[in-house]
């Protein structure tokens, strides 16, 4: 039996496989942790570089006092602004605000100093970092290096990898080397790290480039002149190397996850398919293990398997075997019972007959007559009980012949008109022959059963309709009465052995629910089928038999 909203095994396994999603999540968490560690390392490295440069500049106040080479209006304005802010916070002395005219000598000295600083900076500068030195007046004294990495080292992979990167790019953003290298002015304007360094404490800062495409990390370290801060060294680097490591890792993770997913999914689906196939095969066999006639077949599916399905199959088989024994017992029960009862009945009968032969008084004769009447009824029951068994035996050995079904039906109906005086029987049959293959005697027996049923359930005086017609390759034989409709729960079981819609009641004729079963056996012997349905409008019941015509 199938339920409508049931999830198949495959769907269930697919749902369970969603648990695999925890793996990429864990991977991402791990990559993020790694990134944090790397960033901390980078931070320390930057600070160390800044400290190293600052150490080189300690106690060389002259170098830092010089005015910067570039001395444009914008810078001045920015510096003024910064100084104002600093003053308002009470960090710079009031006097420092005055604009100093640049003397020629001072300019030369400054250039010299700058070159010296630049030389020092070049000594420690790395390709991806930018170093600059700023004096107390927020003047940038020297600047070395750039933030951009050379793009060549980034792209050196195969075409396939390239394509994959492109695809993965939808999910994982790679760091771009195409960002605006901020002019130090902006950095100065907002640099908390620098401010902190000029206060005497090394500072760190992480910021976005002005266009927001990259993250720049900077470290500032104060340059000491004796006990006061003379300036600051700033080291900047983008986090791009780490970010690209991270996105590499994520890409690899994504690729691995996808491959693992596809692999796992393929394996799981394959496994589930195999499993559900085996179970389905078992189910199909189990469903058809008991055929329409109630016979039992053996279950072969998975019976050799060593796993639970094999166990299931074997216990099914064992159960069916036990059921089959029971079934055989039941099947032969009626026959055996009637056989076993014959001998005691013969004892009773022969005793009664002997009693009749003896010169017995009238009183005894009455009782003997009654006993014989009961005996006759008992005999009828026995005959009915063994009828189906006998028919099954007969069907096994019956010879098939071609015969005209129409002639049989016409003959039978003529007979029924005599037999069922209270029920008018209407026949509609074609005049031409309808040839079928089987046994005319059995067909007559089948029609006997159908008409007997129809007449019994027919209200007195109402007609029973029997009709025969050609429907394609089949002959349709139908019997309709105007009696009560079929109880819904019985409809599918009507043609099984020992099933009766009659209410239990005592009557002269015993009913064991074998009549329609016998009819079905005969219909099937003819290669046909039998069905019962309510007549349209609830006007009685129609039993239809389809028998294949011979050509």
């Amino acid at each position, binding site marked *: 039996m199938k339920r409508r909203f049931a999830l198949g095994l495959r769907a269930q396994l697919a749902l369970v496989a969603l648990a695999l999603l925890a793996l990429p999540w864990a991977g991402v968490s791990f990559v993020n942790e790694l990134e944090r560690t790397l960033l901390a390392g980078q931070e320390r490295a930057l600070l160390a570089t800044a400290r190293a440069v600052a150490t080189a500049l300690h106690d060389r106040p002259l170098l830092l006092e010089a005015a910067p080479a570039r001395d444009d209006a914008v810078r001045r304005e920015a510096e003024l602004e910064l100084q104002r802010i600093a003053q308002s916070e009470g960090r710079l002395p009031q006097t420092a605000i005055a604009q100093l005219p640049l003397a020629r000598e001072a300019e030369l000295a400054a250039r010299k100093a700058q070159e010296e600083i630049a030389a020092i900076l070049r000594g420690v500068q790395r390709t991806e970092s930018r170093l600059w030195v700023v004096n107390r007046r927020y003047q940038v004294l020297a600047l070395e290096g750039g933030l951009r990495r050379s793009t060549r080292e980034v792209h050196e992979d195969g075409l396939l990898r390239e394509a994959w990167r492109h695809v993965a790019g939808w999910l994982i953003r790679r760091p771009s080397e195409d960002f605006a290298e901020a002019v130090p002015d902006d950095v100065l304007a907002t640099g908390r790290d620098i401010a902190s360094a000029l206060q005497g404490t090394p500072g760190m800062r992480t910021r976005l480039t002005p266009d927001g495409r990259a993250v720049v990390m900077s470290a500032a370290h104060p340059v000491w002149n004796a006990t006061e801060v003379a300036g600051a060294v700033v080291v900047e680097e983008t986090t791009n190397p780490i970010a690209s490591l991270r996105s590499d890792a994520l890409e690899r993770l994504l690729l691995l996850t996808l491959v693992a997913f596809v692999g796992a999914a393929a394996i799981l689906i394959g496994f589930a398919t195999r499993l559900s196939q085996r179970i389905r095969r078992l189910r199909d066999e189990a469903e058809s293990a008991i055929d329409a006639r109630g016979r039992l077949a053996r279950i072969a599916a998975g019976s050799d398997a060593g796993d639970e399905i094999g166990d299931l199959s074997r216990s099914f088989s064992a159960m069916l075997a036990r059921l089959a024994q029971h079934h055989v017992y039941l099947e032969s029960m009626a026959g055996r019972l009637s*056989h076993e009862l*014959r*001998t005691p*009945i*013969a*004892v009773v*009968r*022969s*005793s009664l*007959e*002997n009693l009749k*032969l003896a010169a017995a008084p009238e009183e005894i004769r009455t009782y003997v007559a009654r006993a014989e009447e009961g005996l006759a009824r008992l*005999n009828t029951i026995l*005959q009915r009980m*063994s*009828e189906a068994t*006998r*028919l099954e*035996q*007969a069907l096994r*050995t019956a010879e098939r012949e071609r015969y005209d079904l129409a*002639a*049989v*039906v016409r*003959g*039978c*109906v*003529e*007979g*029924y008109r*005599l037999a069922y005086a209270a029920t008018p029987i209407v026949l509609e049959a074609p005049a031409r022959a309808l040839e079928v293959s089987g046994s*005319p*005697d059995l*067909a*007559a*027996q089948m*029609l*006997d059963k159908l008409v007997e049923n129809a007449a019994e359930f027919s209200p007195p005086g109402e007609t029973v309709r029997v009709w025969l017609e050609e429907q394609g390759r089949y002959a349709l034989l139908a019997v309709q009465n105007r009696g009560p409709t079929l109880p819904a729960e019985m409809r599918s079981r009507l043609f099984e052995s020992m099933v009766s819609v009659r209410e239990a009641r005592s009557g002269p004729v015993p009913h064991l629910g074998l009549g329609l079963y016998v009819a079905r056996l005969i219909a099937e012997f003819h290669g046909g089928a039998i069905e019962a349905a309510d007549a349209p409008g609830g006007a009685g019941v129609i039993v239809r038999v389809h028998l294949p015509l011979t050509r």
Partner: protein
Amino acid sequence: MSRRIAIVEDDPAIRANYAEALRKHGFEVSAYGARAEALAAMRARLPDLAVIDIGLGSDADAGFELCRELRALSASLPIIFLTARDSDFDVVSGLRLGADDYLTKEVSLPHLLARIAALFRRAELAREPAVAEETLERGALALDLKRFSITWRGKPVALTLTEFWMVHALVRHPGHVKNREQLMREANLVVDDGTVTSHVKRIRRKFQAVDAGFEHIETAYGMGYRWKE
């Protein structure tokens, strides 16, 4: 001298009942409960007629064996099977072994007596020269009502008593349909419809063995059978 009938039946009550009933009708009856006992007694002195049950005690087919052994002792001894088994298979087996009739235990005593009497008559007359006294002729068919024998186109058709009476019932009024019940009554047989059908089939086959073109017993479906001239 009264005729001797041997009854072989394992159920003591039935055995006693039949034995007494037959004795009341003037037969001398010896009753046996087992095959070995019956065979030994009959070897010593052959009865005039034997009524045998198929299942004797634990041996389900003892009656068949006994029938074969009796037939070996005497080809002319009338043998009747009287048994609870009514499947076609058993009937065919029994008759093939040479029994003269096959009755189920539903048969009433009067019917059984009628058969026994008929068989005795047939056995007796078989020994006398054939004098056509009571015969019924229908075309190529000739029924000897005394010997219960039938010839078709001059050739004998080996029918059992039951079958003989059925043919007799059909032939008496050619063209008239006899339903199964009537046939049963005429054949002194109480069985169900299916048995009549298989009896008729066997009769047809026996006629066809003599004459392959035999088609004179016609089925009127739903009603019965008739003899077609």
